[in-house]
């Protein structure tokens, strides 16, 4: 796939690291046989702590067979996914009105950074190797979250199969998914977990032809077409290995992991009426190598991690009407991270610390961006304590950023101290039912594109500041065979110096400016219900989100007080599940309300609401350690013509079949404290 020498080198490094860690693991395995009498089951942390999280386990998110992480997250409360086209389409995340660049993706405890565009395409994150997804970043224990994520508005954390200790000695997973419009996904994963070490690998290939029919309503008639230039091929290779051991009263754990993904896709863009000659392509190759060490005693925990990420992007427009007759832009982002976390339990409370240093640089074949380099230092100190049923968390986050750009002028250094505070009261003995009040102030820096990109960049940009205030309730109850879980949240967020693009030289030349002031308030609810009736299990889960994100920039502006573009006031998602012996039946309902394509809320900018219904059924069987699950279903069963972003048309009714096979040989002793 890649003819880029830099990435060939990266692949070699990855393979070398995997080989090294497997070899290291084999040595440890030899040692383990002589130390099997050691007992690691000592430190089990079950404490009441301040948190504001939604967690989704693999067994839950596989129910609806989502295409990718973006497709999954659109089911959650408070989240809007800006979806540019289903399978392979870019998906960016907005959480409670905070845009994509206020939200940080964390993979295996380390931030995925891209200083060029500052955001993550959640359509590129495959679910095949993901064990759990966690949304939110207020947590009383700073150990697992890097400083660069704590200082952000919100986080999405994922942990992967091949990078964590398993519960079985040998585990194998195979998955195949075929769907309408030429979708074929194949993945497999293997992991070996011994008492003291593990080693795992995941491989995935996805191909999609993408020529789906769509209809656009025009007057009394519909124009029916087929989506063109929408094919893609993607690969994923991920590997991990880890060791754990104990000296006296200290436990240690070290993990190595690497991931490489390659996405080669055509870009259909928005549907342009009467002109369907798009032929642009986009190649993205992302690599990551990381190491993570955690040490724990009864009072002190600490973590040290390092990470290298390389992201290559090539945009090709073979019919661009310039002198050369084409446009070929290549960008390479390199990102080095080094950080540490620590937590110290004292009689007067817990003190935590997180620090992280990053160096990020962009190289490109475009001469007009320069070669920007960013040095970042993020530090957080935190104090948490509990009195009876009350828990308090206070934190101060320091952010220091410095840019260099050798060929063009660069932006000023940035230094900020932002406060965070949470107060939570437990309403039940098990700490799962509570009420919490959270405030945090965060900022996001302008990214390299906003600062330096050709005609549009603006080196005078200020950071975008956000204030977040939320009141959260979590309530869990089980009565006989019925269990309930409710998690309502009301919030108010304010964004100052919001960075947007405006025409500043002519209509075709837009510039990036700090102009908007946005107030966001809303409420959302995440719920789960389950009732067991002999052999029949009935469950329902879902979310309801109400959000007002209002432009309060200029009083004389036509859009003053109006809802921001592409922010639906209402969204809701519900999954109903029936399980009877080996059979599962699922119904998923997804509603996205009306929204506007521009900030001015007038009928001409209105984008229609849509309501989607999916059905699927699954058959499960298990023979010894072999588990098989076959699921077939239909998405968009009533063949709605819809789009989230205007004219980025989505597929109509489509079908899928997924086969999952898992095998493991025998259980491994579990060591939660390690």
């Amino acid at each position, binding site marked *: 796939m890649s003819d880029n020498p830099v990435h060939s080198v990266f692949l070699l490094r990855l393979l070398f690291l995997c080989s090294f860690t497997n070899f290291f693991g084999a040595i440890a395995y030899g040692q383990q046989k002589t130390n099997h009498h050691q007992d690691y089951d000592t430190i089990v942390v079950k404490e009441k702590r301040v948190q504001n999280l939604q967690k989704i386990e693999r067994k839950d998110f596989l129910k609806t067979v989502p295409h990718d992480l973006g497709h999954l997250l659109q089911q959650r409360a408070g989240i809007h996914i800006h979806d540019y086209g289903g399978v392979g389409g870019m998906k960016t995340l907005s959480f409670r009105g905070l845009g994509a660049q206020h939200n940080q993706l964390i993979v295996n405890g380390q931030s995925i950074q891209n200083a060029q565009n500052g955001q993550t395409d959640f359509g590129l994150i495959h679910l095949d190797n993901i064990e759990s997804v966690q949304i939110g970043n207020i947590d009383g224990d700073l150990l697992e979250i890097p400083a660069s994520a704590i200082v952000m508005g919100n986080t999405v954390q994922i942990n992967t199969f091949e990078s964590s200790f398993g519960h079985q000695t040998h585990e194998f997973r195979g998955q195949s998914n075929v769907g309408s419009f030429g979708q074929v996904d194949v993945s497999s994963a293997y992991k070996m977990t011994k008492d003291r070490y593990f080693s795992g690998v995941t491989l995935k290939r996805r191909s999609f032809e993408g020529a789906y029919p769509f209809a656009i309503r025009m007057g009394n008639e519909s124009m029916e077409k087929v989506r063109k230039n929408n094919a893609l091929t993607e690969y994923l290779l991920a590997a991990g290995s880890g060791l754990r051991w104990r000296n006296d009263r200290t436990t240690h754990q070290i993990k190595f992991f690497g991931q490489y993904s390659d996405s080669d896709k055509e870009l259909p863009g928005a*549907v342009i009426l009467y002109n369907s000659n798009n032929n642009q392509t986009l190649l993205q190759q992302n690599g990551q190598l990381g190491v993570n060490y955690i040490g724990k005693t009864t009072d002190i925990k600490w973590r040290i991690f390092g990470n290298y990420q390389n992201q290559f992007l090539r945009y090709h427009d073979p019919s661009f009407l310039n002198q050369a007759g084409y446009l070929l832009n290549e960008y390479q982002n390199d990102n080095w991270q080094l950080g540490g976390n620590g937590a110290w339990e004292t009689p007067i409370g817990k003190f935590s610390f997180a620090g992280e240093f990053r160096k990020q640089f962009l190289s490109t074949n475009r001469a007009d961006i320069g070669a920007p380099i960013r040095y970042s230092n993020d530090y957080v100190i935190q104090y948490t304590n509990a009195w009876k049923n009350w828990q308090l968390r206070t934190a101060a986050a320091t952010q220091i950023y410095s840019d260099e750009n050798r060929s063009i002028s660069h932006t000023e250094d940035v230094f900020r101290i932002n406060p965070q505070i949470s107060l939570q009261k437990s309403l039940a003995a098990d700490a799962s039912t509570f009420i919490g009040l959270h405030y945090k102030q965060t900022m996001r820096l302008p990214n390299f594109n906003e600062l330096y990109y050709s005609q549009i960049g603006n080196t005078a940009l200020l950071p975008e500041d956000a204030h977040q205030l939320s009141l959260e309730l979590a309530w869990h109850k089980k009565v006989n065979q019925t269990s309930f879980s409710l998690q309502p949240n009301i919030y108010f967020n304010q964004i100052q110096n919001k960075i947007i693009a405006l025409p500043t030289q002519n209509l075709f030349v837009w510039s990036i400016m700090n102009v908007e002031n946005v107030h966001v308030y809303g409420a959302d609810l995440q719920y789960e219900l389950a009732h067991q009736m002999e052999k029949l299990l009935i469950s329902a889960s879902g979310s309801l989100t109400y959000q007002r994100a209002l432009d309060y920039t200029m009083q004389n502006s036509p859009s003053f007080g109006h809802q921001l573009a592409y922010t639906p006031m209402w969204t809701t998602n519900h999954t109903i599940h029936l399980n009877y012996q080996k059979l599962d039946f699922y119904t998923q309902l997804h509603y996205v309300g009306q929204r506007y394509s521009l*900030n001015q809320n007038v009928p001409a900018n209105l984008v229609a609401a849509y309501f989607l219904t999916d059905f699927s059924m699954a058959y499960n069987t298990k023979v010894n350690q072999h588990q098989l699950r076959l699921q077939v279903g239909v998405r968009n069963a009533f063949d709605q013509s819809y789009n989230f972003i205007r004219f980025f048309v989505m597929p109509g009714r489509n079908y899928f079949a997924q086969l999952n096979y898992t095998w493991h040989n025998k259980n491994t002793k579990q060591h939660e404290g390690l």
Partner: protein
Amino acid sequence: MKVYSRVWFLVFILLISCNKKEQPEPAIPSGEWSNGLLILHEGLFQQNNSKLSWLNLSEFSFYTDIFSAKNNRYLGDTANDMAIYGGKIYLVVNASSTIEVLDKYSMQSIAQIPMQFNGQAQQPRKIAFYQNKAFVTSFDGYVNVIDTASLSVSKRIKVGRNPEGLAVYQNHLYVANSGGLDFPNYDSTVFCINLNLMKITDTIFVGANPGNILALENEGVFVIKRGNYGTDPSELIWVDPTNHSTEVVLQGISGIGVSGRSNELFVWYFDHGTQQSMVHLLNIDTRQIAHANLITSADVKTLYGVFPIADDRFAVCDAQQFVNLGKLIIFDYHGQKLSTTTVALNPNKVIYFP
């Protein structure tokens, strides 16, 4: 299960009932189109929201989308130019890469001319006419010659990079080559095409990034050289048609148009950085400003075009920062504001129907 069904049904009804209803559009006028303005709106790229609208000057009733109403389909994406020739209206739609030809009296489509060549969109930009031929610049570096009877492309003439404005002076066509897609390496030429020979006969250097162009009988050719929007300022250039020598008339001018008063031209300026707008009247003979600051920023937010209405009024297109519904403001020649109408997104061309 009945209870569950009812709950879902109620939730669904609640959500559906939250949808806002669109405002009903006034009925499209029937019969003769007179005493009004035909307004072309560019819309925004990738939103397919170009509109052809009608403003009735008797009642000041506004009809947003007469193209769709009359033709049961959308106009397309990023309409750049509009002109009347004979009994037809020609609409140049850049991103959709089409020329829409309408009957001037019914507003119904006569033809949609796809501007594609070898499977590639040509992106047409501006249109001019001469002796039953339409000439259309397209971003692929050509002037397309369209026969106004058969409504088909009869010839393609290779010109400079990303040609934009074009104007006919006597039997010559002047084409401004912007080279805008090669930023910062702009083109800086105006080509002269002999329309009898259909060949380029001269190349005139006017400075970086030429855009709008206007030819006035017996006066010559005026070109807006836009520069680089920074160190190289925009200028109004006069081209002598006899020898193609050039002369800088004014600096800091971003638009030019025929005024309703003899011997005067509109020249206008909008500074995107400071958001300042100005409209002056230029005396063609003296090349001097005859009436300065006819309108200013107090009157208009984002100036996007000035068009005469008969001899006593002119219309100003206000793009309202390009992301809000535009305004069509009518002034008299003393700069007195007569009316303001909220129109559609990015109005860029107005034709007066007496």
